[in-house]
């Protein structure tokens, strides 16, 4: 230890070309009683891509936020290119050449791309010259790094993939040499993720240093040069990527062996549970989102739907879930259900045996300010079994039920009185899943079940979905993770532009083919 410190200090005095781009020493940070980072030291070589992995709540985001001056560390020091720097706010981090892309984008939704890019880095008090200059530079940057975005588009009109490009452009515009990305692929499609990686590689080849936080081991293996593992606020290991394997990393992260493949028997489909015919949906802006969807899910099978975000999958789930209106025919267990009017709401659908794990657990699936037990009946609060009498809900009973569910679904901490926002992403997702699966539905709609969730939790969530299938229930799974679709589904349907592009069996297709279909290229076109 002391020797290391010695050399470190020397480096401080005389920076050398080989000094690491980033060196953190003994960083600690507590949020009240929670020790988010404990004495963390790490060094990242210049011109490399460094991965950081760890369970939900391990402290990855906190560490990076400290590096970016967003939080202030309680102890420790930061060296950039061998020089000790004081980073107390983001301005100083930017000045030190650090750029960060946060997990939840820090973009002003109703501003244009250009305005977002120059925000805080304008030159001069007037906007016009700044904007003109930025426009030029942006063009240059996007040419250089394949980062094309319309500079005049409003952020709220962009797909998440494009929003992320804006975040990267923001950093590059500020001439960042060090780029930190916190779970950048969580919301991206595989194609978008691949594109992102090409950009990152391009940046690295230009000598930039990149720190990448992700829960996806595949990505770590694919793109990083070195990888660090965090557990419960501590840095447990740093290894060269080429010297390790996903299995080893998973074990380092979770502290036990993790099954990285879904283990399931072949499906034994029964009779159709839901049949959708010619389903069409027009959204609030008057845009047609679904253009005649036909599909069917049977008992005991998982139908996977893949597609680039924004091609109608969300709307499909919302119409089936009952909180968006549509036209066409939907039969549930042979009976037609209303698509408009009084009986087209979530409650009526749930009464028909449709449960729904929504794509966005923060905005839809959970009320973050509610306690776990209150969330455990969210949407089912009219269910007679949760009522004490005609007037009152059976709160004690609900809490007891929640305790049982939390134990069964391994929600940590298993405390029904904790507010939802105090759980990590993975555990929040388990709460939603527990709620919907415990209802024993005939049909389970699942949207992005493992988004932002660590591998330990992913394993568990996948097991639960398969178990439900094996009980003979129908499952409609929407995910942008092709991995997930391929390993969980019994049949796969690809959506593009509000239509179904085609259906495949997982055993007879691969990511390449699905990717092409997701881009709207049909078999015939391919043949030509």
């Amino acid at each position, binding site marked *: 230890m002391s020797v290391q410190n010695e050399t470190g200090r020397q480096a401080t005095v005389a920076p050398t070309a080989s000094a690491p781009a980033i060196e953190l020493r003994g960083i600690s940070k507590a949020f*009240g*009683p*929670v020790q988010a980072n404990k004495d963390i030291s790490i060094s990242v070589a210049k011109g490399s891509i460094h991965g950081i992995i760890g369970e939900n709540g391990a402290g990855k985001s906190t560490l990076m936020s400290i590096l970016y001056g967003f939080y202030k560390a309680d102890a420790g020091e930061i060296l950039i290119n061998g020089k000790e720097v004081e980073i107390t706010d983001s301005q100083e981090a930017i000045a030190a050449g650090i750029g960060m892309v946060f997990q939840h984008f820090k973009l002003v939704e109703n501003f244009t791309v250009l305005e977002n890019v120059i925000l805080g880095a304008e030159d001069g008090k007037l906007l016009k010259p700044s904007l003109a200059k930025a426009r030029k530079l942006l063009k240059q940057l996007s040419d250089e790094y394949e980062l094309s975005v319309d500079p005049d588009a409003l952020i709220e009109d962009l797909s998440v993939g494009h929003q992320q490009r804006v975040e990267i452009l923001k950093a590059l515009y500020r001439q960042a040499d060090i780029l930190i990305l916190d779970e950048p692929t969580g919301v991206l499609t595989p194609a978008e993720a691949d594109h992102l990686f090409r950009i990152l590689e391009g940046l690295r080849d230009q000598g930039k240093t990149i720190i990448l936080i992700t829960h996806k081991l595949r990505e770590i293996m694919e793109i990083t040069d070195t990888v660090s593992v965090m557990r419960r606020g501590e840095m447990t290991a740093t290894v060269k990527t080429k010297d390790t394997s996903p299995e080893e990393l998973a074990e380092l992260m979770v502290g036990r062996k993790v099954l990285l493949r879904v283990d399931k028997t072949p499906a034994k489909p029964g009779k159709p549970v839901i049949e959708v015919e010619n389903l069409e949906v027009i959204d609030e802006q008057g845009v047609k989102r679904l253009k005649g969807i036909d599909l069917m899910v049977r008992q005991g099978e998982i139908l996977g739907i893949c597609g680039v975000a924004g091609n109608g999958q969300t709307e499909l789930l919302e119409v089936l*879930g*009952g*909180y968006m209106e549509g036209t066409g025919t939907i039969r549930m267990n042979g009976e037609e259900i209303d698509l408009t009017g009084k009986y087209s*709401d*979530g*409650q*009526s*659908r*749930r009464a028909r045996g449709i449960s*729904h794990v*929504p794509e*966005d657990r923060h*905005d*839809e*699936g*959970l*009320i*973050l*300010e*509610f306690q776990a037990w*209150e969330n455990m009946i*969210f*949407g089912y*609060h*009219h269910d007679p079994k949760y*009522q004490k009498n005609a*007037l*009152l*809900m059976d*709160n004690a009973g609900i809490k007891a039920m929640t305790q049982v569910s939390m134990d069964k679904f391994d929600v940590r901490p298993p405390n029904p009185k*904790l507010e939802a926002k*105090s759980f990590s992403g993975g555990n929040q997702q388990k709460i939603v899943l527990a709620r919907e699966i415990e209802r024993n539905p005939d049909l389970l709609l699942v949207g992005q079940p493992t988004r932002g969730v660590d591998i330990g939790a992913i394993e568990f969530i996948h097991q639960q979905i398969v178990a439900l299938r094996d009980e003979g229930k129908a499952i409609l799974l929407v995910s942008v993770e092709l991995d997930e679709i391929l390993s969980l589904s019994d049949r796969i349907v690809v959506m593009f532009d509000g239509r179904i592009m085609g259906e495949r069996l997982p055993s007879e297709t691969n990511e390449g083919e699905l990717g092409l279909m997701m881009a709207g290229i049909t078999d015939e076109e391919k043949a030509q």
Partner: protein
Amino acid sequence: MNKMPKWADAVLIPLISILLAFFFSGLVIWAIGKDPVVAIKTMVDGAFGSTSGISYTLYYATNFIFTGLAVAVAYHARLFNIGGEGQAMLGGLGVTLVCLAVPWPHWTLALPAAMIGGALFGAAWAFIPAWLQAKRGSHIVITTIMFNYIGAALLGYLLTRVLKVKGSMVTESARFPEGAHLPNFSEIFAPLGINFSPNAPANMAFFVALLCTFLFWILIWKTRLGYEIRAYGQSETAAKYAGIAPARIVIIAMLISGALAGLMAINNVMGEAERLIDNAVEGAGFIGIAVALMGRNHPIGILLAALLFGFLYQGGAELSFWESIPRELVVVIQALVIMFTGALDNMVRMPLEKIFVALSKDKKKEA
């Protein structure tokens, strides 16, 4: 997870905040050349030192409980109802019409009827803004402000042209019949051997207010409707996912809110004045905003905040009686209390939290 024990958050912080507010009030009192210690003593004595004082304190508190609950119900659905003033005014009208329409034989009959009248009129006055918000997206803050003015005009008209007793100088309705008289505290407590000042205004309505506070708690935390109101208030998108109809919640929450504001009239109109007078609400609707926010929209909090304001009103009156302190100074004290307990509470909390975290760390080290 918690940085501080619950009791510190619930008791210690408000207590320190109130002390700070009184400290600054004392400075102001001192600055205008009076003795702050005497002033505070006068206030406390005046508000709690006699049955008459207590009765006045509780009378004012009753008003504020109703309007505070009204604001809070709407606030749980994230609706900011500034219209408590107008709704309480209309509630007064409802109570008056009920009380004058029938020669009530006994208050036990008159009270429920008047409650229905007040609640109905208050709810009706809240309904239009609610409906416009739900169906047309018209911002409830503007519409409720406007409805306060419209309500005042409507009552002004009715009091001068319709309800006024002919030949009387005063713009007020006729006196309610004897049978609509609500027992005051002295009448209520006399059979129990407790002597209350017979001429102070606290009355039956106080118990109705307590009942409403309890029902409010049941509604918000024990019933499906309350659950839906809170869910909608926290996240509209999530509410939609759960099959909770936003328009329905907006309208129902506002109807309950208006009804609670309207119910205030059984205290000030039926219980105290026993007739409808001009400007009977006297700003209680606005105080209700402060009460609800300071009480963190929780019934217990609202109860305590309402009592605090009742104390400030009655204690303030005593201050004017005996110390010839201008009544506006009482308004300043109210302002400081609202400021310190409601908005500047973090000023107390932040250092306190540090102390508690340090303490708990020390403990850990010892262990």
